[in-house]
């Protein structure tokens, strides 16, 4: 390739490179530097070595409880979201009329997502005086404190994430369409049931899509913030105090930017190790077609 073609190529990707350097690499590098300082927005950062990391790992009484809350949240939200996405993808993977309309309708919540407005709507729906409890009372059920009781609040928040399963569903749908029909036909000739087909053909053939969705949803769920912040403010009794809320409180509540940077790098390393281990073990449960 001649030099002119190479420089043209670089010219084409220059806007992205500039964007990445300014809005990606520079903030990343700066936050890593700040994580070793006591920077607090209004004071000049002073180098404090690993003090922030020691503080968060050994002294901060909120770090590990918030990590535990986040872990529980991820363990509920990710499987529920993937199962819902797969269920609806399989429903939509049939030859039915107006399939595109249905796909669009099921994708809509993903566009709205866990935005602030939807979170506020969630609060009105699930509060003790909300729509869901009103409906329950009409059919003679006792009201359920979905958001007010520490036992239910985190689960209610996960529903907000599960609801927006559209993007995972579209990936599953694409994966389902890739599975050769002959496999199902051969299985039926052998007299297999639908359930057996699902576990022996659909799931293994779909495992690369499942793995991709799993990784993406794990990364996203560990960084969930809006729902918990808008709906419950982390309560009741810190039962929905996700790690990102802790990070936000340190950065914009206590203005400890250096410490908040350390928290964000801690979360990054945690997610990185988790993702790395999943990749290492993926050959055990992901089947790639030759």
């Amino acid at each position: 390739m001649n030099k002119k073609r190479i420089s043209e190529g670089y010219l084409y990707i220059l806007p992205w490179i500039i964007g990445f350097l300014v809005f990606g690499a520079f903030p990343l590098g700066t936050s890593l530097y700040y994580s070793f300082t006591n920077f607090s927005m209004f004071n000049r950062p002073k180098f404090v070595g690993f003090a922030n990391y020691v503080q968060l790992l050994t002294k901060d009484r909120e770090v590990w409880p918030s990590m535990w809350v986040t872990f529980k949240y991820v363990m509920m939200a990710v499987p529920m979201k993937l199962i819902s996405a797969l269920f609806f993808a399989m429903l939509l993977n049939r030859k039915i009329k107006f399939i595109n309309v249905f796909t669009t309708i099921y994708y809509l919540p993903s566009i709205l997502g866990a935005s602030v407005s939807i979170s506020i709507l969630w609060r009105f729906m699930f509060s003790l005086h909300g729509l869901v409890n009103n409906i329950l009372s009409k059919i003679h059920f006792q009201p359920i404190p979905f958001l007010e009781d520490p036992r239910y609040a985190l689960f209610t928040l996960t529903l907000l994430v599960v609801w927006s399963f559209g993007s995972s569903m579209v990936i599953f749908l694409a994966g389902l369409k890739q599975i050769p029909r002959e496999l199902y036909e051969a299985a039926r000739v052998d007299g297999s049931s639908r359930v057996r087909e699902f576990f022996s053909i659909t799931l293994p053939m779909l495992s690369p899509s499942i793995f991709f969705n799993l990784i993406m949803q794990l990364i996203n769920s560990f960084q969930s913030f809006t729902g918990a912040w808008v709906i419950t403010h982390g309560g009741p009794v810190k039962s929905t105090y996700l790690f990102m809320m802790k990070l936000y409180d340190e950065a914009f509540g206590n203005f400890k930017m250096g410490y908040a940077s350390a928290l964000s790098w801690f979360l990054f390393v945690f997610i990185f190790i988790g993702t790395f281990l999943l990749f290492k073990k993926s050959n055990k449960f992901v089947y790639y077609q030759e």
Partner: protein
Amino acid sequence: MKKRFLICLMLVLSVSFVFAQGNTESAQKSGDVTLRFSWWGGDSRHEAYMAAANRYMELHPNVHIICEYSGWDGYKEKLYTQLAGGNAPQLFQNHYTWLGEQSNWSGEKDVVKDLSQYKDLIDWSIYPEGLLESNVIYNGKTLALPGSLNANAIVANKAVLDKIGFDYNQNWTFDGFFKFSQQLKAIDPNLYFENGMSATDIHIFWFLAYLVQKTGLPFATDYVLNYSVSDLTEAFTFLQKYFTAGVTEPLGTLELYSGNYSQNPKWVSGESGILFGMLSTIDTYVNALGDYKDQATVIRLPVMEGSKNPYYQVKVGQIFSVAASATDKEAEEAVKFLNWMNTDEEAGVLLKLSRGIPISQAQNDALSKAGLMNPMVVQAYQYAKDAGSGLGEGPGALIRNNEISSIGSDLISKVAFNMMSPEDAAKEYSSLVNSKLKDIKVAQTK
């Protein structure tokens, strides 16, 4: 051809982007000043401040005021980020409890202007002696100017409390919470005596009021908590009983309306008796009552028998600061506008009582003359003064420190949900708060 057209189009767009801003600015006359003006509050305050800003622009056509207003939630976070970035509104509402930290930061980087440098533009005669010194002057610098006085107040819904024959002028104690609640519940179990607050606000108000009234001591002296574990146990026990007896809805529900207490359906639908707040929130609370608006009144603040200090304090109401990033011209115009709001009779009428009781006597007289002196605000102000001059949140309002506030609200929540005994909560509170106070001392006195 197509390629050339695209290149020309990109050039035209780039040029227009670059110069668009310049054109907007050059559209203003050379003597014009644009001020960004921000505050927090509810609808009635937003309307009042916008009316004042519009009138000021009519009187001073060279000044353009852009109003940036919001609710209380998130105001501080947004403001501080703007201050750190040097793009805060030139004139913004501040809080008297934030000035200490802003003064500390100013050691390295000024956050707000020292308003004493504009002494000729300010009418200092409206301020009673000592008011500025004890509220807005730090290290000899006037960091903000108040325009009003504010005090704690309780709005009551007579449609609820008439059911138990409540005497609206009576003095009542903390035991009253249980007595009146029990009487209401005997009539209808769905009724609550108090509409309630979040754990963070209960910590600053009822919890601290209880301790101050019991001990007569401020929250901390020389960065050491003034309350013994036994005092704290008593205060936590009071709160445990407060929730168990159903004085308010369960804490989990109250948290959902944090900062917007009057939006709680129990208040709106006339199922709770009283709502605690400030003089400046009376309008919002009453307006939220909808069908029960005409039934609103104010009652006295609770003071325990044998109280050593009433806790309640008439404080400066809304205070405004000028951002350090404002240019000299902008700062001068911002101070002139602020002084106009704080002293001018017409401004006083436009602002009504949305910011509390005006400090300026002329503005008070103008409000009375215009029939805008809401008798409920006047009555609540009188009740606050009757309660006596208390210690309030104490010097530096350390209880409002974000981390101390978090400790308090966590432990109150645990007690409210019966996840911790008052005794254990008291021990943990004492240990965690004292440790945090030590950290704050190091940070503030270095």
